[in-house]
């Protein structure tokens, strides 16, 4: 079992979701994060004081999958999330030892 985690630009979420859907991925979990990297933040102004917001809003997408599909999923996410501009984000893979579906108690592949 693997966990694919992607940190992407918010506007790409829909494309990523559809790409995963096309691969038959049935579920995913997303959350709000703030990213810091090569991409520059923006500047706000408040009563003559100017300051920089360095963190940028990003979306983290997490997909549990089996070993076989993992490459396809990574490729699909990367392709769908790409705009070609700095700040497109990262995708990474970690090993998962076990997965359980809460509703049924099924384990491993059946839990997905």
């Amino acid at each position, binding site marked *: 079992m693997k966990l694919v985690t992607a940190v992407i630009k918010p*506007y790409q*979420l*829909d*494309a990523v979701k559809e790409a995963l859907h096309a691969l038959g991925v049935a579920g995913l979990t997303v959350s*709000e994060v703030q990213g810091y990297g090569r991409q520059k933040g923006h500047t*706000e102004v408040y009563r003559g004081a100017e300051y920089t*917001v360095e963190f940028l*809003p990003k*979306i983290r997408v997490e997909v549990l999958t089996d070993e076989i599909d993992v490459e396809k999923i990574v490729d699909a996410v990367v392709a769908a999330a790409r705009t070609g501009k700095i700040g497109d984000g990262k995708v990474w893979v970690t090993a998962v030892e076990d997965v359980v579906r809460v509703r049924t108690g099924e384990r491993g592949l059946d839990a997905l």
Partner: protein
Amino acid sequence: MPEAPTIDTGNTAWLLISSAIVLLMTPGLALFYGGLNRAKGVLNMMMMSFSAIGLVSILWLFYGFTVAFGDDKGGLIGDLGQYLGTKTFMAETDLWGETGIPLYVFLAFQMMFAIITVALISGAISDRAKFSGWLLFAFGWATLVYFPVAHWVWGGGFIGAKLGALDFAGGTAVHINAGAAALALVLVLGKRLGWPREAMKPHNVPMVALGAGLLWFGWFGFNAGSELTADSTTAIAFLNTQVCTAAAVLGWLVAEWLRDGKPTLVGASSGAIAGLVAITPACAFVAPWAAVLLGLVAGVLCALAVGLKYRLGYDDSLDVVGVHFVGGWIGCLWIGLFGTSSVSSLVSDEGLFYGGGVTQLGVQALSALIVTVYSFAIALGLGFLIEKTIGFRVSAEAEVDGIDLAEHAESGYDLSPAAGGSGGAFALAGIGTPGAAKPADEPAEPASAPVNEKVGG
């Protein structure tokens, strides 16, 4: 030969603007209640107020006003035919009494009272009442309770005219009345799921304070407007409203400080409402110093009263009983204690502290009791009728997911710290939309893929 009454532009101006600010109280109440509520039910809570404006205005125009203020029939009801809403009153003589005010201004002013009285009840039943049930209840209670009770108290009916009970701006007719109905509905609907184990605290305290501010503002129209004219009674009603409310803010804060260790903004806002409620019946009958005392007492007592529900086990969600019912009773009795003819010629029996004995106090208590019993009984009956027929309470699932989604298919906020600002990735990602497009990815044919737009079917 007495001159025919003519319009007094000053009085008319005062009652026009009073009517407008009393109308504003109901949106203010929607904010006050809405902010006190959990976020997942804020819209339903506000809808109960906004729908009361819509519904009660129409009922009042067509028959409520004539029930309440038509010529008295047997002490119980106004002449039904006199002011039916199908008629038009634009003659030069269509003024209200000796006030120099067009009839329609008085009708509009009193309409705003009917609206907010109904809306007040909704705070008790937050997060669990079907919207259709609420509308039905509002219709029934306005018709069977508020309109006749307004007649009894102000329209020449038995409480005001025979019994001689005093209620300048609505201690019995509005606050005790609404509070008793609220208690009845709480018994019909039962507790929110999880109450009292979960605290169910306010989701937006600045909104509570905003609502309290608008209510305070509008209440000057409510109380000082009830004189109908602009004179020195208006002046003292205005002043008493201010100082009693100020004292109640302090009273509630002190009670919190002593009991909980901390004074809160919800407490300050609640204290303001308690003071406003308490001074409502008494504002034109007591001296300013007695209004200050009333405020302190009402602030402290209502701060204590809102805790009673935990001991008695009823879920009066936003404390309509603890604030309006209790505050209304205190203010109503205060006239029997501190009412004085040196302030108002309407006071015939001096209050107890002025050596006038307990006559007026007894009359006040009786009037409050009558309204309490009548309103409670009818509201209970109406509530059970609705529960047994169309059902009054939403499903447990709807309650867990949130009544805003279940009853109104909308949710209060889509903020994400600052959508598009320093945070707000979800909002940027268009979560909650049918499909967040890539920036430049517009549909080829503009109207081809609307978001399930249903207008055209």
